[in-house]
């Protein structure tokens, strides 16, 4: 009886210690992750107003505005037809050139039919096509139909960046040792980055067309691997306060989190004023965001931004 009792007590003590160790580990690991995160990934911020006025005159800034033109590469499939239609009706109107690339043709909507079921192969074909048809467009934005993008804010972010330098921007994630840009929050590539990518596509060793059969990487990770071989690394797009501009979640879920984390300062603690993307929103929510971004505003508050972007022709929801 005694030995049973003492065994029980011993067990309890061991159990308690075990639990403590687990919980302490649990609370420590996110912190260590954060530290390494800050150390390793690169940050890209937009030029501040002061910087802009310091480096460029007003007319030069206007000139920059005309040069920053974005080619939107939107990867669609007939199975998400409603999202596809929503993107056509909403944010893609603000791209200088919006091209829809589909896996198979749809009778309802027009797109460039790549006739390719494999996601990675399809992305390669789309990027190749975009590169060949770029014209004088020097920036490429790859998105899915579940993404909502504010192209003007993207342009502001890349305003002072030279497209002849390799840029690969978005929301950076880590997978083991690989830093990659998440697909659903949009991928930004400069002309130079895309050029290097197209070249490395021809190298079957480094960048095979059919991903390794045993271990199929998602297309966004594949992209990062191929780009890494060409010396292009993923960078995180942030605002002046270090807040991420590319979001792979809906605005509602970000606000719900902020209500829990910053109950007295929900909106400030949530999302950037100049956010570039949100992801996963329903088509209706995307229409509401269109209204919220381009139309709804309080009278009498002006931001004399150094760039001017105008509403697209033949549209009534912006």
């Amino acid at each position, binding site marked *: 009886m005694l030995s049973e009792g003492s065994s029980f007590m011993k067990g309890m003590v061991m159990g308690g210690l075990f639990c403590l160790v687990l919980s302490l580990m649990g609370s420590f690991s996110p912190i260590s992750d954060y530290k390494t995160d800050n150390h390793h990934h690169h940050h890209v911020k937009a030029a501040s107003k002061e910087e802009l006025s310091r480096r460029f005159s007003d007319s030069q800034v206007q000139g920059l505005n005309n040069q920053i033109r974005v080619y939107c590469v939107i990867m669609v499939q007939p199975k998400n037809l409603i999202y596809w239609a929503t993107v056509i009706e909403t944010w893609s109107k603000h791209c200088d050139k919006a091209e829809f690339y589909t896996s198979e043709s749809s009778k309802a909507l027009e797109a460039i039919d790549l006739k390719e079921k494999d996601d990675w192969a399809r992305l390669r074909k789309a990027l190749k096509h975009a590169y060949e048809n770029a014209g004088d467009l020097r920036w490429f934005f790859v998105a899915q139909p579940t993404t909502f993008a504010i192209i003007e804010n993207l342009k502001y972010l890349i305003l002072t960046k030279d497209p002849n330098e390799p840029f690969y921007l978005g929301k950076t994630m880590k997978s083991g040792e690989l830093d990659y840009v998440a697909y659903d929050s949009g991928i930004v590539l400069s002309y130079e980055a895309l050029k290097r990518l197209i070249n490395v596509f021809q190298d079957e060793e480094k960048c095979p067309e059919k991903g390794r059969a045993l271990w199929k990487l998602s297309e966004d990770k594949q992209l990062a691997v191929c780009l890494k071989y060409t010396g292009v690394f993923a960078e995180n797009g942030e605002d002046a306060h270090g807040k991420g501009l590319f979001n792979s979640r809906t605005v509602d879920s970000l*606000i719900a989190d902020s209500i829990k984390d910053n109950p007295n300062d929900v*909106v400030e603690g949530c*999302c950037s004023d100049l956010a570039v993307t949100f992801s996963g929103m329903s088509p209706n929510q995307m229409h509401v965001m269109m209204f*919220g971004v381009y139309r709804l505003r*309080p009278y009498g508050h002006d931001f004399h931004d150094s760039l*001017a*972007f*105008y509403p697209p022709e033949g549209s009534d929801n912006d």
Partner: protein
Amino acid sequence: MVCASPLVSKPHLTEGVSPNTATSLGDGHLKRPRRSCIWSGIAATATHCLLSFSTCAACPRVKCCQATTWISMKAVGSRFSFYAGFVVGTFTLYVFLRQVWFERTDTGGFADPGEFQQQLEEENKIWKKERSALFNLKHPHHIGEDSHLADALYKKVRILCWVMTGPNNLEKKARHVKYTWSRHCNIVIFMSSVDDPDFPTVGLGTKEGRDQLYWKTIRAFHYAYEHHAEEADWFLKADDDTYVVVDNLRWILANYTAQDPIYFGRRFKPYAKQGYMSGGAGYVLSREALRRFVEGFQNKVCTHTTSVEDLAMGQCMEKVGVKAGDSRDSAHRETFHPFVPESHLTGKFPKSFWYWSYCYYPIVEGPQCCSDLSVSFHYVDAAGMYLLEYYAYHLRAFGYRHRYQSPTPKGLRLEQSGSQGSGKHQHELTSQEKERGQAEHKEDGPPGDAPPAAPQEGN
């Protein structure tokens, strides 16, 4: 001896099987030990158990088998109790830790009294609490924003917002109103059935419930008139699930004065000749309209006719000669909305829905339902309040030149006509516009929502 040794070396034996029961059960006894041995999952020990029991049976019952079972129980029992203790210990500590941590985050950091003080101090910077009303000390600004027009209107068009709420909704709904749009009012008062000096709310001395709505409204307006008549020009009524873009309300009201007997909201047709304003979408009375309302009750011209608050209000307004104003923007788009943005922008209301027959002005579905300078939305939940605050006051497209250029309200135009304004910027904009040949910009009334420099106003 013979019995003891094999059993001690193999502790995975049956537990709780006393030698007495084993033998007294007759036929069944062999089955029981077998079953318990199989629980330990090792076939070898099963046969071993059988063997052991057969040897046990041969042994002197009391001493040997008792000893073996005692030892085996001891070995098994102590290991079992160790495992049991381990599980219990883990679970207990987990629950304990959860409670401790849970408490810390759940109270929103109020476990530490210092933090509560901090929050009070923050609040004191935002509002001055006086006579159960919150006087806004600084209405929110963005860094790098030119809000001189909004500031001018803040001084010129003073709005007292009163929010219809109740004791059960203070933390669920009213709090979110307090931290979002009500910060843009000059004064905000939360009207409840019960006094609450901390929130603060005014107790109207009514009960709660839909049938009390008009009583609450009557008393709330009377309270506002008696305590704050000289401190505001306009008096807005809103629900705790209404979101109001107060700056846009000022834009509309700046075309009128506090002495005009007029009130604005989302105009409904039926039951009143000039129509009435939807309660949920919020409505706003001029000081003169409020004065006539109070006077109307003194003279018994207006009484508590029905608990349908908005309708009753509309009937009283008509009786005392207050005009039902047109709150639409210069492109005839509605500004006060009885539903959430999603419903108006994307919803298709069925033709049988009451809404079709109620709206005074023609309903437009789709993006043209709603003005860029919309004033209110209704049925907005807590998260929706913050989302609308984000959409209206924060999220924007950098450098975007809006399609709808809102005309400068009368009240501001007269003041600004003498000043020069930042004409340079204005000119730059027009030359750009000419380049782009944007016909749409000319369409909607006198252009220029930025500094209204005189040259632009030449029509």
